[in-house]
C-alpha cells in the first residue's frame, strides 16, 4: 500500500478549510441579517413588535382592542389596529372590519367596555361606531372606527388598557325596521 501523498492531501485540506471558514463567516453575517429581516417580517404580518414610541414618550399607555361577536350573529369582526400607543394629550384611532356572512340583513349594536374600568376616565370616546345601532345588508363588509381622546396626564401605574367590543343583535330594533 502506497503511503498517502502528503502534499496533495494538504492542498485539498486547505481548500476545504477555507470553504468551511467562509461558510462560518457567512453565517455570522446571517445572524445580523436576521435583524432587518425580522423587522420587515413583523411589519408585513402586522405582528406587534416592541415599539419605540412607547418608551420615548414621557408618559404613554398601551391600548389594546378586543372584539367578541355574540354566538347567534352571522357576523365577523376584526380589529385592524389591535394595539395602539396612547400619548398623553393625544388621540388614538382604531379601525375595525365588520362583515355580514349571511345574505340576510342584520341589525346590531357594539357594546364597549374598558378594562381596567378606570381607563374609561382616561380614554374618552370622541367618535365611535358604538354610539349608534347599525344595520348590515346581506354579505356587506364595512370598515368602522373609534377615536379616543387621551387625558393630559396618564396614571403611571396603568401601563395598558383594553377596550373590548361585544357585537350583539338587536331583536326589538330588528322588529321595528321589519315592520316599517
Amino acid at each position, binding site marked *: *500500500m*502506497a*503511503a*498517502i501523498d*502528503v502534499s496533495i*492531501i494538504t492542498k*485539498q*485540506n486547505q481548500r*476545504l*478549510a477555507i470553504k*468551511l*471558514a467562509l*461558510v*462560518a*463567516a457567512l*453565517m*455570522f*453575517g*446571517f*445572524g*445580523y441579517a*436576521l*435583524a432587518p429581516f*425580522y*423587522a420587515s417580517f413583523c411589519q408585513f*404580518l402586522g*405582528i*406587534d*413588535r*416592541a*415599539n*419605540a414610541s*412607547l*418608551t*420615548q414618550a414621557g408618559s404613554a399607555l398601551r391600548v389594546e382592542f378586543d372584539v367578541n361577536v355574540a354566538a347567534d350573529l352571522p357576523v365577523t369582526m376584526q380589529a385592524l389596529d389591535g394595539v395602539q400607543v396612547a400619548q398623553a394629550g393625544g388621540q388614538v384611532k382604531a379601525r375595525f372590519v365588520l362583515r355580514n356572512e349571511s345574505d340576510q340583513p342584520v341589525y346590531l349594536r357594539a357594546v364597549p367596555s374598558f378594562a381596567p374600568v378606570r381607563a374609561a376616565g382616561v380614554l374618552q370616546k370622541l367618535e365611535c361606531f358604538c354610539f349608534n345601532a347599525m344595520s348590515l345588508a346581506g354579505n356587506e363588509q364595512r370598515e368602522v372606527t373609534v377615536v379616543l381622546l387621551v387625558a393630559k396626564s396618564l396614571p403611571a401605574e396603568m401601563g395598558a388598557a383594553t377596550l373590548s367590543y361585544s357585537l350583539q343583535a338587536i331583536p326589538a330594533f330588528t322588529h321595528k325596521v321589519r315592520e316599517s
Partner: protein
Amino acid sequence: MHSPSIASTHLHTPGEHHAEHQTGWARWLYATNHKDIGTLYLWFAFAMFITGGVMALCIRAELFQPGLQFWQPEFFNQLTTLHGIIMVFGAIMPAFTGLANWMLPLMLGAPDMAFARMNNWSFWLLPPAAALLLISLFVPGGAPAGGWTLYPPLSAQAGMGMDLAIFSIHLLGLSSIMGSINIITTILNMRAPGMTLLRMPLFAWTSLVTAYLLIAVAPVLAGAVTMLLTDRHFGTHFFNAAGGGDPVLFQHIFWFFGHPEVYIMALPAFGIVSQIIPTFARKPLFGYVSMVYATCSIAILSFMVWGHHMFAVGMPATAQLFFMFLTMLIAVPTGVKVFNWIATMWQGSMTFETPMLFAIGFVCLFTVGGFSGLVLSIAPIDTQMQDTYYVVAHFHYVLVAGALFSLFAAVYYWLPKWTGYMYHEGRGKLHFWWSMIWFNVTFFPMHFLGLAGMPRRIPDYALQFTQFNSLATVGAFCFGLGQLLFLFNVLHTIRGGVGPAPAQPWEGGNTLEWEVPSPAPHHTWESPPDIAMVRRGLIAQAVYHEGEDEA
C-alpha cells in the same frame, strides 16, 4: 502488506514533529498529536464537569428546604446561569470534541487530524474562556445572572460580568469552529482506502454532521452576543426597545443557534451508542443507512423548530402550529434510531459490561426525555409548563442521561485503548448503577414539581414543594458523590487497572481502532491501513459485502 503492528512504528510525516518529542508541560502546551489533544480536551471537560457539578450542588443545597439558607437570590441566579453555560460549553461539547480527536483518526485509518497546529489552538482557547467565566464571579456585579440563554433586557443591564461572559463565548465559538473545520476535513479527506462515506463508522457520521451544525450556528451565537455587546457599550439598538430594537429578536437569533445546539449535544451521543451496542450485542448495527439518513434529517429539521422555545412570547397561532408540528416531526427520525438500537440488540448475544450498561441506560432515559420533549412541543401545554421544573426535568433527561451517560459509555469503552489497561469491571458497574439510581431520584420528581407548578430559577419556593425538593437534593448529592468513583476508576485504570488490555478487549468490535495495539501508540496509521484489513472490518459491520466494489 502491512500488518497491524506497523501502526506502532514511527514513520514521520515531514514538518509536523518538533513538538512531539518534548516531555513534561511542553508536550501538552505544544501538543499537535491528535491523541494528546484528545486527552487534553477530555481532562478539561472533566474539570469543567466537576466545576459545573459543584455549582449544581450549591443550587440543590439551597433548594433542600424552602426559605433562604445559603445564598442571596442574586448569587443563586449567577449559580444557575454559570452551571448551565459551563455544563453545555465547558463540559459536554469539549468532551465530544476530545473524543472525536482521539478516535476519528484511529477509526478512519488516518495518521492524525487534518490540521495539527490549528488543533492545538482550538484546545488552548478553552482554558482562557473558562477562566473568563469564573473570573466573572469576582467582578463588581458578579457573574451573568440572566440564565444561560442571556435574554435581554436582563443581560443588557447586567454588570461587567456579562462582558466577560460574552468574550468567553466568542473564544468558545472560535474554538468550536476551528475544531469543526478540522473534524470535517479529516473525515472527508483522510479516510482509509475502501472506506467510502456510507461505510464509515456511525460515530464518524454523527461527528461530521455535528461539525457542520456547529459551523452553521456557532457564528450565529457569536453574532447575537456581539450585538448584545454593542448594545451595551456602543449605542446600537438591536434589542433595546427604547431605541427601536426588540428583545424578542434576541430570542429568535439565540434559539436559531440554541435548538441545533441541543442536537450538537445529542448527535455525537447517538454515534457513540451506535458503536457500542453492536459490539456488545455481537451483531452489526441494524439499519445502518437509515441511521445515517435519520442523523441528517434530524440535523436539517433542527434548524426549523427554534420557535418552540418561544411559544409564550406571543406568536401568531399559525406560527405556533408550524413550530409545533415540525417539532413533533423530529420524533420520527429519533424513533427510527431508537428502533434500530433495539433491533440491533434483538436476539444478539448480549453481555453487559459497563459501556453497554451506560449505552442501554442512555437509550431508556433518553427516550423518557424524548417523550417529555414531545409533551412540551404541544404549544398549549408548553404555555403552561414554560419555566417550570418540568422543563428542567426534561432537559436533564436528555443532557445528563443522554450526553453525559453516552460519554461515560465512551470512556469505559475506549479506556483500554487509551491506557493499555483494563478498568475494574465491578467498580465500573457500580458507577453505572449508582449513577442510574440517583439520577432518577434527582430528576424524576422534578416532573411532578413542574406539573404542580413550581417555577424554575428560584431560590425559594412554596411549602407544598418541600418533599420532592428534599428528595431531589439528596439524589443530586449522591449522584455527585458517585462521580468521584468515576474519577477513581479512570485513575486506577491509568495506573495499571486490573491488568494489560489486548488490542481488542471486546469480542464484537470491528472498527479500525481495535486493529492498533493497546495502548494506542503515539503514531498510528502513518501509512494507511491495508485494504484487506479495512474490508474485513466493513464486512463484519455489514456495510460492505464481498466483491461489492468489483461489480
